[in-house]
């Protein structure tokens, strides 16, 4: 983490830079970082590029070790990292390539309201959301599931809660993997993890997680926006959260069980946090089964957050959520590993695609894109910071050709939490946001300081790169008007 990256970054094209395999003898493939010259300057400032090189040493890695333009330092893998491994070539699965918050992700809910309908009701709306939706440390949710129910929920995904009236079947069609990753094994999840998760489904959590009321600020592709049901000044709700304590514990448990894996399988690791095991080993298989179960919990968590949001809107506006047109546009995971079919050097292969702070971005025609969007491509939801913007993109063909169907996931941090707090001292972030037209409420004094807009890179610059590289294309820019934070 210490110091700037001084290794080679060779220009491939205007939006891609290479760390050649020759940089280190242990690299099996090149590192490829998607960035422009402006972003590259800040990317060089920490050791994230070295982490891209570290990932290039993993057994069974295919093509290259990738990083998206929102790359920043992370545990083991950088945030914004993508790598695919082939189990048939001894390819590994790495909890560090998924992250502690398994299936951290984002969903965007549409409404048929426009800015003019809500602007005089924003304080009431944000208060309603803040007092209904549990956010921040130490908050339990309104939904409690015992051990047996929590395990069933992990096996079934959001269908489990939808069957209890907390959503509708069409929500599933608009969720990545239809909200249920196959071959999840809830029994592979430890009792400790289940206990951590039993009261937390339907809670936002803290850190960078948020719920925002947003308006469509600009439309870049009118046809795709129309297919997605988005138009200028329309009000939407974006939810960013993951699998809560359950997912963190699944990651912890795997890192403990992987401690002896390098010696057992003859893997040399440049960083202990890169712990991994062959995907086809007993340790690997157990983590995969548990990680999939935790991912299903993550989809359920966002489903329950959406349900509570719909209830608050219905109460504030005195109309049912159906009447308010509060349909789910899409839900994407940005911390996950999935077994997907990709073409590598002309051959179709099933590979483990690790996306850690990266989003799946399948183009038009891909069978996994919901039928409603198959002609245009998969919606990609990119959260930014709470003062500037977030984005809706659409998966593009370049992602399949270059990055195993992946694109960026957000803005990426520019300041440490401590530096952000220092920068906030003596200021009233809440008032500053209000002056920008954003009503924000947070459960902790530190939440708003540490997550202030200046703590993040400008998401517009990140999106410019993935658009130019044709990994995903701009559809609409969203501007926040109401924020709740942990």
């Amino acid at each position, binding site marked *: 983490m210490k110091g700037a990256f001084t290794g080679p970054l060779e220009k491939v094209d205007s939006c891609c830079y290479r760390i050649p395999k020759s940089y280190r003898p242990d690299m099996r493939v090149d590192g490829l970082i998607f960035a422009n010259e402006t972003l590259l300057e800040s990317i060089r400032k920490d050791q994230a590029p070295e982490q891209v090189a570290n990932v290039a040493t993993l057994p069974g890695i295919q093509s290259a070790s990738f990083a998206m333009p929102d790359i920043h330092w992370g*545990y083991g893998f950088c945030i914004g990292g993508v790598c695919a491994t082939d189990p048939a070539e001894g390819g590994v699965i790495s909890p560090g390539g998924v992250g502690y918050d398994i299936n951290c992700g984002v969903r965007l809910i549409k409404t048929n309201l426009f800015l003019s309908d809500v602007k005089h009701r924003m304080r009431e709306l944000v208060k309603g959301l803040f007092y209904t939706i549990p956010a921040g*440390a130490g908050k339990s949710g309104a939904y409690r599931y015992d051990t047996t129910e929590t395990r069933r929920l992990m096996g079934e995904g959001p269908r489990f809660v939808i069957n209890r009236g907390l959503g509708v079947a069409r929500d599933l069609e608009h969720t990545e993997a239809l909200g249920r990753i196959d071959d999840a094994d809830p029994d592979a999840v430890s009792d400790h993890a289940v206990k*951590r998760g039993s009261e937390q489904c339907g809670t936002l959590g803290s850190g960078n997680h948020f719920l925002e009321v947003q308006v469509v600020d600009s439309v870049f592709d009118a046809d795709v926006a129309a297919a997605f049901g988005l138009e200028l000044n329309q009000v939407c709700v974006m939810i960013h959260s993951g699998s809560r304590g359950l997912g*963190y514990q699944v*990651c912890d448990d795997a890192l403990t069980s992987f401690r002896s894996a390098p010696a057992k399988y003859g893997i040399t690791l440049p960083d202990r946090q890169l712990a991994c095991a062959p995907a086809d080993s007993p340790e690997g298989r157990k983590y995969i089964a548990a990680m999939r179960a935790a991912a299903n919990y993550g989809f359920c968590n966002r489903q329950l957050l959406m349900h509570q949001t719909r209830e608050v809107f219905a109460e504030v506006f005195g109309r049912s959520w159906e009447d308010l047109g509060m349909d789910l546009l899409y839900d994407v995971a940005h911390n996950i590993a999935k077994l997907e079919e990709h073409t590598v050097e002309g051959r179709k292969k099933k590979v483990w695609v690790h996306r850690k702070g990266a989003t799946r971005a399948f183009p038009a025609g891909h069978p996994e894109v919901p039928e409603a969007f198959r002609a245009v491509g998969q919606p990609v939801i990119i959260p930014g910071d709470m003062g500037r913007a977030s984005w809706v993109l659409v998966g593009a063909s370049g992602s399949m050709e270059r990055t195993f169907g992946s694109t960026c996931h957000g803005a990426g941090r520019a300041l440490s939490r401590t530096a952000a707090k220092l920068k906030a001292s003596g200021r009233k972030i809440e008032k500053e946001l209000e002056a920008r037209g954003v009503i924000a409420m947070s459960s*902790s004094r530190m939440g708003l300081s540490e997550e202030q807009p200046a703590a993040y890179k400008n998401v517009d610059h990140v999106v410019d790169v993935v658009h130019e590289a044709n990994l995903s294309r701009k559809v609409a820019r969203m501007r926040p008007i109401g924020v709740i934070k942990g």
Partner: protein
Amino acid sequence: MYELFEHTADLGLRATAPDLDTLFVDIATCLFTAIVEDVMAVRPVQDVRIEIEGADTEYLLVDWLQRLLYHCEADHLIFSRFDVQVTDTGLIGTAWGEPFDPARHALSHEVKAITYHELKVKRTADGWLAEVIVDI
């Protein structure tokens, strides 16, 4: 002696102590200074006993903090006093605290996980030093 230190997106815990037992006590207190705004206001009225096997001191430190974090999250307990005996084969510890009460306690960070990044437990000229980064 303990302190929090800065790290990219997260927080670091650092403790120094004359012996290993005190080091484990101090790093645990440090963890709860990251979680609660005023750890001294947490009354030591309820105890949890924790036993962990393992010979690697660094892994033992991670396991100890992970277990405390588990009780914090799953049982809604926050801790302010600790007693630890580290042996060659593991540790036996007790943590004292009380259930989280929003009327009296303010939580500052939700610690997601104890990480292995730049994890250190080492001897120094005057005793021991431990450093661990927590994911928040």
